[in-house]
């Protein structure tokens, strides 16, 4: 026993000594190289972007469109000669859908790969994990996903001057359609969502607006990840006498819940409004299970406008005719182009310059139509669409039919301690 414990101690200390040595060496290297030498050496090289995508793990299904959107954007920029005469190079980090791995990858990309800025992370939990890293390393993170909005409580994942939000938040994704939904289907909401920050805060904002139009929440349920059985949830919904099921389940739980909901014949008795199920998940649900659901986002593949048609043509040329795009992939595409525009405007690639020039920047060629990054709180001003899943759809071309849309929705101000960020 004694020898064993001695042995452990020895290895431990040896390891930590090695680690400290390596760390020390690394630090000296950086500080020596820091100002002049490093920058001049890199001037001719490409601009490096760290792309953190969920390429494996539970949310792999979303990861493809996520990384494809960014790659397409970068390809287009490089084909047009790059920025400031330099190409953009993507260095990929797989988040494995785990916040812990996001921290590792962000550190690796910044410290070892020396990327100029970061793009990606997928879920709110992943973004919140990356928050402290980009704060301490002072790097910009371009975040693409529809999310719960910014509240000081979740700093540094939000309300962070280094993080730019390219996706919609509830006051853009939910609020504009509240009147239509309640007027047509009734004012009693049952909220069902996965048990983490995005559904909880999204519901909080949704309730605010619901109260404003005189509605009420008759049930609220949070489901742990990977729940196979929804009988008790379905019974609670049935007994609540709700008009609208407001749905924020994610990933495979969405599919599990919706299949059992339809199998119980409940889709005839309730209206379901989801703010999660974009093209990828709706494809996974299939036409029988998804038909009749209402979905709201800033972007759908079915949107008819010249930007989107041209965008989809290029996207399909690169990734195949059956490849799926969604709101997150388009946000990544916009993030690539807008960061390039900001760098061009600044004439240099530094965190400060990127941050300053992304603010109040507009992008005319965005697939969903012109979008603008609001400078005050780093939140994108976006369109908002309410769609209904068509009966018997055969593919993304006829999956959604438009109910209503707004060309440009300005979100309420971020609830941060001090604005502008």
């Amino acid at each position, binding site marked *: 026993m004694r020898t064993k414990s001695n042995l452990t101690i020895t290895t431990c200390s040896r390891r930590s000594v090695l680690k400290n040595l390596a760390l020390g060496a690394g630090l000296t290297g950086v500080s020596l190289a820091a100002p002049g030498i490093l920058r001049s050496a890199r001037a001719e090289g490409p601009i490096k972007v760290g792309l953190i995508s969920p390429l*494996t793990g539970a949310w792999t*299904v979303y990861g493809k469109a996520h990384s494809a959107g960014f790659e397409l954007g970068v390809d287009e920029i490089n084909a047009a000669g790059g920025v400031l005469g330099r190409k953009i190079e993507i260095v990929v980090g797989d988040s494995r859908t785990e916040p812990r791995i996001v921290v590792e990858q962000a550190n690796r990309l910044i410290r070892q790969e020396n990327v100029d800025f970061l793009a990606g992370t997928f879920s709110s939990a992943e973004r919140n994990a990356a928050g402290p890293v980009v704060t301490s390393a002072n790097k910009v993170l371009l975040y693409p996903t529809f999310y719960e909005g910014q509240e000081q409580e979740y700093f540094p994942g939000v309300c962070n001057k280094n993080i730019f939000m390219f996706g919609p938040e509830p006051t853009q994704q939910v609020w504009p359609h509240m009147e239509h939904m309640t007027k047509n289907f009734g004012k009693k909401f049952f909220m069902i969502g996965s048990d983490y920050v995005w559904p909880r805060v999204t519901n909080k904002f949704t309730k605010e607006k619901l109260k404003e139009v005189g509605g009420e929440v008759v049930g609220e349920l949070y489901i742990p990840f990977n729940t196979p059985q929804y009988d008790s949830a379905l019974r*609670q919904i049935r007994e609540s006498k709700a008009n609208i099921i407001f749905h924020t389940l994610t990933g495979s739980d969405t599919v*599990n819940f919706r299949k059992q909901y339809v199998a119980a014949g409940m889709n005839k008795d309730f209206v379901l409004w989801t703010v999660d199920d974009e093209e990828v998940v709706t494809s996974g649900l299939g036409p029988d299970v998804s038909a009749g659901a209402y979905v709201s986002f800033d972007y759908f593949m079915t949107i008819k406008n010249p930007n989107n048609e041209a965008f989809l043509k290029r996207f399909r040329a690169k990734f195949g005719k059956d490849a799926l795009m969604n709101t997150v992939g388009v946000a990544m595409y916009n993030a690539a182009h807008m960061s390039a525009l900001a760098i061009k405007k600044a004439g240099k690639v530094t965190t400060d310059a990127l941050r300053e020039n992304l603010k109040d920047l507009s992008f005319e060629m965005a697939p969903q139509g012109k979008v603008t990054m609001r400078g005050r709180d780093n939140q994108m001003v976006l369109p908002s669409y309410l769609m209904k899943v068509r009966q018997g759809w055969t593919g993304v071309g006829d999956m959604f039919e438009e109910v209503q849309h707004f060309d440009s929705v300005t979100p309420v101000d971020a609830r941060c301690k001090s604005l502008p960020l």
Partner: protein
Amino acid sequence: MNTALSVLVDSTLITFVFALAALGLAVVFGLMGVINMGHGAMLTLGAYFTWFATTAGVPFAPSVLLAAVGVGMIGLGLEHFVIRHFYDRPFETLLLTWGFFLITTEIIKIVFGTDLRTVENPLPGAIVFGTVVLPAYKSMVALTSLLILVGLALLLFRTTLGIKIRALVQNAEAASLLGLNIGLTYKMVFVAGAFIAGLAGALISPMLSVDPYIGNIFLVRSFFVVIVGGIGQVLAGTLIGSFLIGGSETLFALFSGQVVAQTIVFALAIVVLRFRPAGILRTR
């Protein structure tokens, strides 16, 4: 009253679905003492085979059978080439079957991709009695599960093969001295376990999203079912375990949120094990 009745119906259905998912594990674990960590992968394979067959145009029922036979064959290969060399070494089989799980999951990703797949519900709709709603397909699965349990009971307690298997469980050495072909009997039990796991995966597939992790959802729960029910208590133990792990969650969810209900259930399982370490049906 109505709520009570519908809760009863719900928890009964879930109990049988869980029993079906755990039965393959219970057979292999209970009768052979092999801790099959690959059980989740076998469920997943069953689901994917069903998806593959139905997409290729095979009707649902034959697809399920094909899937179960397919997983049974994989089980046969696994037993013949690997497991049988490690019967007296439980820790090694645990690692080997875990390896099988990891490899299978990655192969599934490579062969079938990581997109969400769906198997269409072959029996859509529900039977409604007042406030009690019986989803047609789930009821069918519960019924199948019951039939398999009854069939297994008949096999174990009414046939010569059943006597041989029980003899093997009681005392392998004595059974072999009396001329029982231990290797062959073990092989049959393992393949039967794999077959049932494949069948369960196939039958569960229309209720869940078919992804490379579909089996994982049930793996931990299945282990709890088997351990709480009592190792070796293949039939009654599996049913009681399934009720405690699956059915009771529905009851607790009546009074609390789903998250709390799930926590209570697993805490309860630990309490049961603390006072009945050999499972609820066995006192030691």
